[in-house]
């Protein structure tokens, strides 16, 4: 009649239930607080750029008209997606500063997309008109 044997064996094992509780709580904490957004940044100006000789460069003023990505330069209107026209514009004067100004109500996303497109097509100096050098 060894009725207590089982109980005695059981009490010797380490109880892992509180460990699992803690692990669950940690899991919840990390799931709720961790962030998977990959932030990047675009440098709008830096000290090195302002020290450069800017007076020699010509400034081409690009005006964004709407959120569809159409902009005008010297009276001509060009779509952002039109790669050939974009390349021609940049190859005319690769060293020029391409200053972007926006019509009323244009979203920031449109300006950033145009900045990206200009850089991808080979423009070396891109800026926001009237705000930063």
């Amino acid at each position, binding site marked *: *009649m*060894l*009725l*207590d*044997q*089982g*109980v005695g*064996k*059981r009490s010797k094992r380490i109880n*892992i239930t509180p460990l*699992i509780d803690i*692990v*669950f709580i*940690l*899991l919840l904490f*990390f*799931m709720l*607080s*961790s*962030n*998977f*957004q*990959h*932030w*990047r*940044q*675009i*440098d*709008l*100006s*830096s*000290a090195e750029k302002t020290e450069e000789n800017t007076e020699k460069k010509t400034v081409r003023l690009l005006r*964004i008209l709407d959120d569809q990505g159409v902009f005008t330069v010297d009276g001509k209107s060009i779509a*952002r*997606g039109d790669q050939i026209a974009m390349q021609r514009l940049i190859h005319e004067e690769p060293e020029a500063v391409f200053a972007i100004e*926006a019509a*009323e*109500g*244009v*979203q*920031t*996303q*449109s*300006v*950033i*997309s145009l*900045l*990206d*497109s200009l*850089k*991808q097509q080979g423009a070396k100096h891109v800026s*926001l008109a*009237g*705000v*930063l050098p």
Partner: protein
Amino acid sequence: MNFCGTQNSVKREQDDGMISLINIVFLMLIFFMVAGQIQRSDAVKLDPPLSASETAQRQDRVTLLVGPDRGLWFEHKLIADQELAAELNAALAAAEAPDQLSILVKVDGALAVSRLQEVLREIKRAGFPKVSLATQHSELNS
């Protein structure tokens, strides 16, 4: 006549099912600990502009957030438009190396450019040497 023994084995069988669950929980825990980044969340939910820029964010900087409702948050503190100049000057004055201090502007992608330009003009007037705009990485949106 080993009543406790049979009860024990039933309990142990139930526990065996739990072990795989615990394994999964451990794996998830390790995944979230390693892959996720813990950082202070923004004061308002922002949908940052998408860009092909690959530049990683610098850590030594002050942050200015412009919400979709045009509100301003400087270093997680809500401020009025008139207070911006004073806050910027104070941040420059408090910096160890004012000529190295960079400011990160976080805006919503749908924000009007005119508002962004207002804020940038104010920053330029205060004399920040480095200004950058927070974006989210995406392949080029043509």
